[in-house]
């Protein structure tokens, strides 16, 4: 479990760097290299901490809370092994609640700055979050139906034992819904543009405009970890092969390696897809998310009807 958290923390910036590099190469640019996010974090960590005048504890706590909740999620979710000490508490609802806690903390921090952009970003982020969280819940719920448990470890090991379940209509629908929700939750195209400098169009970035130095480093690390964890969760649920069912070091090491490969492939596919996507108009985002919610709902319905229960 510790290895899993360490892998997520260390690997998340590399994943972001790799995705940026893929995108740069596809657009015909040289790119900054896979290690650039780590170099950025090192640079930010060396800077002096600055907090805007008039901000309170919400602003100061949010980066820590974001990273902490994401680290806990990284520990709970069965990414490398289903047999972890925390396996018993890796409940689906708990995971979604922890993710929401991080989002809400950041939104409150955005409001705390009292700037127009902080409030604007927070309002947009909450709009998106309000539509995304139910989708994630419902999608994983559909996947949990065959296992009869909302415990993620049970769902994943169920998928390992019975791969047919993954290719069932319910499984495919739920995976598709989850994929869209992950895009929205992590602020990628077509919901949010992580590379823009136009503050009026931002969702996630507008909220964290006032952060600088080590706080900004934490916010960035938190966002990168969320992306890594959610892509990892998607990989574990949709393609659980290779996940260790025991806690033997060799099996876990192999599983971690496979996880890195799976997440890297997902990340590269996402980065490549982003090259060809454009950002949706803000008011079309709910339509997209409503679509993914519908998919999740269909997945739940399908798993009821098709399992004949």
């Amino acid at each position: 479990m510790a290895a899993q958290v360490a892998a997520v923390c260390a690997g998340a910036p590399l994943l972001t760097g790799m995705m940026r590099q893929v995108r740069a190469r596809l657009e015909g640019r040289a790119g900054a290299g896979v290690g650039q996010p780590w170099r950025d974090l090192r640079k930010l960590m060396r800077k002096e901490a600055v907090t805007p005048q008039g901000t309170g504890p919400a602003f100061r706590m949010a980066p820590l809370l974001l990273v902490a909740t994401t680290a806990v999620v990284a520990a709970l979710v069965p990414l490398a092994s289903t047999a972890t000490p925390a396996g018993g508490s890796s409940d689906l609802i708990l995971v979604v609640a922890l993710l929401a806690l991080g989002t809400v903390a950041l939104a409150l921090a955005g409001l705390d700055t009292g700037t127009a952009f902080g409030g604007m970003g927070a309002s947009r982020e909450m709009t998106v979050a309000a539509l995304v969280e139910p989708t994630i819940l419902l999608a994983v719920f559909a996947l949990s139906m065959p296992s009869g448990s909302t415990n993620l470890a049970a769902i994943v090991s169920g998928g390992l034992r019975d791969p047919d379940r993954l290719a069932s209509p319910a499984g495919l629908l739920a995976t598709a819904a989850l994929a869209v929700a992950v895009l929205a939750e992590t602020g990628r195209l077509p919901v949010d543009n992580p590379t823009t400098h136009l503050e009026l169009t931002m969702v996630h970035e507008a909220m964290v405009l006032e952060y600088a130095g080590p706080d900004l480093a934490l916010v960035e690390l938190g966002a990168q970890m969320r992306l890594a964890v959610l892509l990892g969760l998607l990989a574990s649920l949709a393609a659980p092969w290779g996940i260790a069912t025991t806690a033997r070091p060799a099996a876990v090491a192999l599983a971690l390696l496979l996880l890195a490969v799976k997440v890297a492939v997902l990340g590269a596919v996402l980065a490549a897809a982003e090259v060809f996507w454009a950002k949706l108009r803000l008011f079309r985002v709910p339509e997209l998310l409503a679509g993914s919610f519908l998919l999740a709902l269909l997945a739940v319905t399908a798993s009821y009807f098709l399992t004949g229960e």
Partner: protein
Amino acid sequence: MEHHPALRTVTDIDVAELPGRAVGLLRAGHRLALVAAHHDADGAPLGRALRVVHLFVSGPPDTRTELHVRLDADGPELPTLAHLSFPGGRFEREMRDLYGVVPVGHPLPHRLVRHFHWPRGWYPMSRNAGDVPPFAEPEGPYPFLEVEGDGVYEIPVGPVHAGLIEPGHFRFSVVGETIIKLKARLWFTHKGVEKLFEGRTAERGLPLAERISGDTAVGHALAYCLAVEEATGVQVPEEARRARALLLELERLHNHVADLGALCTDVGHGILGAHAQRIREGLLRLNREVTGHRLLRGGVVPGGAQLRAVPGRARMRALGDDIRSVVGLALGHTTVRDRFTGTAGLPAAAARDLGCLGYVARASGLALDARLAHPLYDYGPALEVPVHTGGDVLARFLVRAEEADTSLALVEHLAEGLDAGAWAGRPQAPGSRRGAVRAGVGIVEGWRGTITTRVEIAGGGELARVKVADPSFFNWPALPVALADTIVPDFPLANKSFNLSYAGNDL
């Protein structure tokens, strides 16, 4: 083929006649192209006064009519034309801020150019302005109009922005995400360009004209040169006029390509932006071969033009294919098209009333183009002026794309029969009118729209007054109009589709 510049009619009228004459000209289809104030010293033919020139133009046929009124030099006052012409009202506010000319009866007498911290009573263009004084006691408060109501909040943006753009402050009054009102407060870049022209020779004025707005080096240099040539009676050789027309299209091309790409980037479709940048780089390198400067400085000179090379047909064809493929991919992408369609619409009536120019006007159904109305060269059938009626971002995108196409055809057509070289005309009768103040007007369709420059040259051959009217001066008021009921996240896209110059607006 001899080319004769259009004749300018100059009428000295009494101040009281001004509104009546203006109504007549505007009703006859003229537009107010420029208003400029001049200091006539004691030695002037009609004595000391503050002389205001209103330039009305129409075309085709190319018609230019000037009304000169003479005001009291110590307490200048002028009846306003704001109720007849919206640009007229803005020119008057500009003149009030720079010269202290009071527009009597102006419906919106707020400051325009005047920076908040300019000292009370200091007018930079007045005769005795002296050196620039330090910032001092502001001339009263200048509050923003507050929109009141349930859930209305304000978003202040700028004047310093995140991207590499010029300074401007935007104040959005917003409900939810919908813009109720936008106030753009510009005028952070006053450089005193018109003042810097004074006393220079015509040759030394050129570098200044090329730098009025960095992306419009040819447009402004050409308008300036045409004005100087009219004033000094220089006949420009046929090859030089052809070379100038060529340079003007090369400038339109590299700017339109940059905008087409930037519009794609602003909707998050980065790959097309990257390719547009690549094509633009190809065009800039071509520019350097043609003039020795990537932004085409040094190509247009007073009396003539110089080319170091002429763009080849195969190269233009290859660039044209690339541009068309970027445009095709952008329009074929459903999300991109959805973002462009219906965003920030400017109705034709608003564009007409505000006096819009260039692609902004042509995207709202007004077929205005100085290449037709005030031609500096006989373009022949290759010149097409695309007009769209949508008025939205899509229309402005399409107008740019089609203009780029026309420019490619024109460059190919104009490059035929041109070789590298330098051409310069001579004054027809040098020194014949030495001693008198001579004036000239240059009108050019720059890539952003119609540029009008009016020049007065004193007896000694030095520039007495240069007034420049960039199309951005006419188009800026259209941006807030187009943005009413647009959502905040679409503002950068709408702003880019107008792509107005701050430097050219605030001289």
